[in-house]
């Protein structure tokens, strides 16, 4: 092993600490509607207990690391979603749950529907399914963890 200079070692330690923190405590802000909302409620429940993985559902977007957007998204919701994304302090990870939030889903022909969240802002993870099982939602959070490993 080569000896690294001291200041570099310190920076490396800080980075590792930051990564560990991001791995072990994830604050999620949920914006959900319809049947995908029911499945997210199930992940909060006792059978698929999300708290054991270090996930907290947070009441304001300012404290969130992950924005989880689930269910049908209409054109009337667009200003609300934009407000929600702009109010956040850092750059957030966005997870789109369900085929409605990914690409309009079964209602993509309708005039009232937005074709997915990707039209408003950048989406990092897509979770297909209509609605996806609660395990699939948990798996997306495990995938989110992978990027810090």
């Amino acid at each position, binding site marked *: 092993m080569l000896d690294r200079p001291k200041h570099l070692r310190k920076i490396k330690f800080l980075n590792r600490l930051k990564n560990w923190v991001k791995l072990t*405590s994830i604050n999620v802000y949920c914006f959900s509607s319809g049947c995908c909302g029911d499945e997210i409620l199930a992940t909060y429940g*006792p059978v698929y207990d999300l*708290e054991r993985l270090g996930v907290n559902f947070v009441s304001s977007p*300012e404290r969130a690391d992950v924005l989880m957007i689930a269910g049908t998204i209409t054109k009337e919701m667009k200003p609300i979603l934009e407000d929600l994304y702009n109010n956040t302090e850092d750059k957030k990870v966005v997870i789109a749950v369900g085929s409605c939030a990914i690409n309009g889903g079964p209602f993509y022909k309708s005039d009232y529907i937005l074709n997915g969240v990707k039209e408003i802002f950048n989406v990092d993870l897509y979770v297909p399914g209509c609605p996806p099982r609660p395990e699939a939602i948990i798996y997306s959070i495990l995938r989110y963890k992978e990027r810090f490993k």
Partner: protein
Amino acid sequence: MILKNLLLKALYFLLFLFLGVYIIIYLHKKTLAHMQSRRGPLQTGFHGILQIFSQILKSLLNWPKLFTSWQDLSNNIGVVISFTFAILAFLLIPLTEDIFLMNIEMSLPLCLSFIMISNMGAFLSIKKVKLNMNKMTALLDRISTVLIFSIPLFISSMGPVIVSSSFNLFEIVRAQSRFYNILYQPLSFIVFLLSCSLLWQRLPVDVPKKDTYFNTDYLSTQNRLNYQISTISKYINIISLLILGTLLYLGGWNGPKILHPLIWTIIKTFVLQVILLFLYTIIPRISGFRKKINLSLAFLCLLSFLNLLIIIFLVLYFKPIF
């Protein structure tokens, strides 16, 4: 030298305080989870011990943002006030006969008033609150609840004071060496517990914002660090109120001499905490200004006055017992 000793002692106390806060948060989460037939925090560390540590660390890594703009410091001053007063209130409380920081004559009322101030302090920080009517009503609602429920808290704590005839916490505990206060004043014990629990907003069970009419609150617009600090100060308040409850009614560090007196206080506080957790999860939350006033003035205050009358009667006619 005296100052140096005092500082060292204060440091020890703070260490104990933070460890205690940490353990109480962890136990709150874990016991609640098992009551709900869940597992609770599990992955980080042994049975998720480190999970809360990482949560706190996460907000602390954000700290440079607090000092980037000095104009904003005035907005954060409320959080600082609530934190410092919460710590000050804790430092006044003795844990055993030997472990204490200071011995003041008026320690009980000072401690209670500090807790009240620290509960009110967070309202001074109205960072980014666009003054909606909703948010203003929520804010006023919080202030009013703190004021309302501190009245029965003060009155009910006068019961043990009359028995020991001093405001000093040491004297109150020494007076209970034969009989614990809970035996002949259970009414004031119940009032004390209820008003305590209403003061700290049912914290582990409910998110504090849920207590108000709307889903807007002064906390929901604060940034991560402010929110974390204010929740930690609330947990410190929980600890100090729980320990006060044990000192006033459950006999404090008195107990069979099998165990160290410090362990007795810890066991008693834990029992109190579990009782409160059970009560929270079944009793629906109290909302509405009128209901709160009715509960505090018509029910809790009346009960505590009744208790005072009984105690005065007992002290006057059966003094040799005490």
